[in-house]
């Protein structure tokens, strides 16, 4: 089988960067980790530096196994902690959080579809100085949907066009958020068409139903943040593509770790950069579980900067997520993250009592679970821990735990999700369920899943309270392996060997 892999490529290269710590993982066509490397660099390494540092040792290792050149790699996947800073570090001390904003963001405009929502106007919950710097204008126009999918108000296309003309030539992106758009995106899509007509194709239109989450204000905030980040993210993506070409990887598809533990293709990441937030941590949790071969486990997440670890839970291979309510740059958003319980030591040291309490709080049920250590500080932490902790069956640092993020991102599927409300009296319940599953599958394909292998994976049904007619909220998730420009079974593309490229 490894011969076949050799002839057809099919390798995935995972690259992780956390501070000065670089990790790389090479995964073959069967999903087996064949080589791993870790390196410590100095002086604020970039993704370019990380790729440069990890690629040669991995290829050298693969060569021993009969693998070989950059041309065998058809997917490159990044898990970069510093992307959280690009998304803007949360404001911890109440002062302006914008130190990490290097400029080039915004200005953007915000449009809300739903005129009778003036109880809280758009952007009311933003730190004012941040809002004033990146948002040029905002408005509420008629539009939006009701719970049952009917119109809340007719879409005011003339009002939209008039607003667009006031911001034309002045904004790089427009965020559009409709009432109940996650259930019925029709008005957001129609609004996007109007805005594109007025503003031309160069202005990015960001729609809230693609971000998801229940709660108009938090979803709107996430959408506007995403609009602010999209133009610089697109420029960064272009730059990274050129770096890959220079490394002989121009043919490879590029993916990034995502907030929920899945991955997304570079084109999707560039237009949905908010989902990068927390992606590296999510990849570490997933990778640690995979390295240890555990489906149900706890993962103590360590970081390069030596801060106290936090504990996450993995159930049936999937990291447990928060219900949303993530504050980014002082702005409350609907983004879901991998749930992490911080270990809160009384003093500075990470003592056993604080750790066992965090272990208990991270669990979803009382069953004892393995505790795995992952991330750049995993081995240092392992050296300080007793062999047994209350509430665990074992405490382990799996091999290559320091490279868990690289392994996690290199083995993760591409994910997609979709939501609908189902009235339990609906005669076509099974049709609605199939529709939401298919919508999730399409979302996964758009995020970069192989269209032939993306499948609906699970469907959550949550009853809605206080409704006269019983209804449930459907949330479908789909996933599939990352697409490849070079399908297995085809000859691999001709590429310049690394040496000739001067690398």
């Amino acid at each position: 089988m490894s011969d076949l892999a050799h002839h057809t490529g099919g390798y995935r290269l995972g690259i992780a960067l956390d501070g000065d710590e670089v990790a790389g993982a090479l995964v073959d066509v069967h999903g087996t980790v064949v080589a791993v490397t870790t390196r410590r660099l100095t002086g604020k390494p970039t993704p370019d530096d990380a790729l440069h540092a990890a690629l040669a040792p991995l290829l050298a290792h693969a060569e021993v196994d009969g693998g070989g050149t950059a041309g065998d790699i058809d997917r490159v996947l990044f898990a970069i902690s510093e992307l959280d800073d690009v998304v803007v570090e949360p404001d911890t001390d109440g002062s302006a959080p914008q130190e990490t904003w290097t400029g080039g963001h915004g200005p953007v405009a915000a449009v809300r579809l739903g005129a009778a929502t003036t109880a809280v106007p758009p952007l009311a919950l933003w730190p004012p100085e941040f809002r004033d710097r990146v948002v040029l204008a905002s408005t509420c126009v008629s539009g939006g949907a009701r719970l049952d999918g009917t119109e809340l108000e007719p879409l005011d296309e003339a009002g939209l066009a008039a607003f667009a003309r006031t911001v034309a030539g002045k904004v790089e992106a427009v965020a559009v958020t409709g009432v109940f758009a996650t259930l019925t995106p029709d008005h957001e899509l129609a609004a996007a068409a109007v805005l594109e007509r007025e503003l031309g194709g160069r202005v990015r239109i960001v729609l809230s139903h693609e971000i998801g989450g229940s709660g108009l204000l938090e979803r709107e905030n996430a959408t506007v943040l995403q609009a602010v980040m999209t133009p610089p993210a697109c420029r960064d993506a272009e730059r990274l593509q050129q770096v890959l070409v220079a490394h002989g990887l121009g043919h490879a598809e590029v993916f990034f770790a995502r907030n929920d533990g899945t991955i997304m293709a570079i084109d999707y990441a560039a237009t949905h950069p908010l989902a990068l937030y927390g992606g590296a941590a999510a990849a570490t949790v997933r990778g640690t579980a995979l390295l240890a071969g555990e489906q149900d486990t706890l993962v103590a997440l360590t970081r390069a900067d030596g801060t106290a670890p936090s504990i996450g839970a993995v159930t049936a291979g999937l990291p447990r997520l928060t219900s949303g309510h993530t504050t980014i740059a002082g702005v409350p958003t609907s983004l879901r993250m991998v749930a992490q319980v911080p270990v809160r030591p009384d003093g500075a040291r990470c003592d056993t009592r604080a750790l066992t309490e965090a272990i208990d709080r991270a669990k979803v049920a009382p069953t004892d679970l393995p505790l795995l250590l992952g991330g750049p500080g995993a081995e240092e932490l392992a050296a300080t821990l007793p062999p047994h902790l209350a509430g665990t069956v074992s405490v382990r640092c799996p091999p290559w735990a320091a490279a868990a993020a690289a392994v996690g991102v290199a083995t993760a599927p591409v994910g997609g999700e979709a939501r609908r409300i189902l009235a339990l009296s609906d005669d076509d319940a099974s049709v609605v369920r199939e529709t939401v599953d298919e919508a999730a599958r399409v979302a996964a394909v758009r995020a970069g899943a192989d269209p032939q292998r993306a499948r609906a994976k699970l469907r959550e049904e949550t009853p809605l309270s206080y409704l006269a007619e019983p209804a449930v909220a459907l949330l479908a998730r789909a996933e599939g392996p990352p697409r490849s420009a070079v399908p297995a079974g085809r000859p691999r593309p001709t590429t310049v060997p690394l040496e000739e490229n001067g690398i």
Partner: protein
Amino acid sequence: MDFDKGNLAAFAKGCDVLGAGGGGPAGQTLPAALHAVAEHGPVRVVELTELPDDELVMPCALLGAPDVYVERIGTGRESVVIRRQVEAHFDRRVAALMCTEVGGSNGPMSVAFAAHAGLPLLDADGMGRAFPGIEQVAMQVAGIPASPSVLADEHDRVVLVRAESGEWLERLARNVATAFGNRGVSSEYVMTVDQADGAVVDGSMTKALRIGTVLEEAVRDGHSTRSAVARLAEEFGGARLAECRVTGVHPIKNKATAALATNTRRTILLEGVNRDDGRWLRLEAGHEYHAVLEDGELLAATPDVITLFDIHGGEPVPVPELRYGLRVVVLALPSPPSWQRPEGLALVGPRAFGLSLDYSPLAADDV
């Protein structure tokens, strides 16, 4: 006293404590209150004695499903059309708006309703906490008629329902709410200032603000959650029942057709930690926390306010967010005297929520 941008956050914290785990998060409606006072200026909080006897007190509350009103946030101006309809129906002036339910989302929302309607807010409410039922208000015990129910949506559509009994009123009002799309604002138990005397829960607004202020001061002074809770117990004649970890949340199957008050039941097991090591508590919950038992003995029960605080964050934990492993401090605060009379307990005592228990008054912490 006024509500303004300086004290609304503390007020909202107090509303969450009085929510007893229910009522929806006050943080969800706090932005609407802040926006309303920014637009219209501070909202004056008044006593009944400051108002003309023959003018009206108009209770107001959000109506429908929380999953809907986080999307359809409305205008906050629904109170304007309701006021117009109420004044036309009774042919009297409304002197003050009253919060129907201080516990949870409706607390801050009533400040927004008052600001938009240009009315002062009465320092009172209908419950002194959160309850699920329209009729679970002190005015029901006092014999004030619930009818008419005036309902409005965010597009100024308004409906006035008159019915001879609470049962019919609720049946018809629910259908109006469904037609609105499970989101609206409603007013019931409209009464004169004279009638309101003794029929409402007095002092609810200032109490919620005081609770929130105590909690904010504790955070500012670097006190732990457990000492903040002990201070609340001391100041309001309540009891800090125990410090625990949640060891299990067990839903109880119930008929989907069961009354709203009893249609989501669960039992929660709490194991004492730290100085409460070795104690085991059983918590009964529905939309709110209903009772705490230890060794088969009742420690606290509805209508007394049972609230759980996350030891680490210091925030009150709503019933749906209780999960295995959480560290909590359990606080019980006494309910207003009107609830402790037999006709009050019949409406909001443990048996009204499907528990085979009799209420007994809370034993306050020794100070």
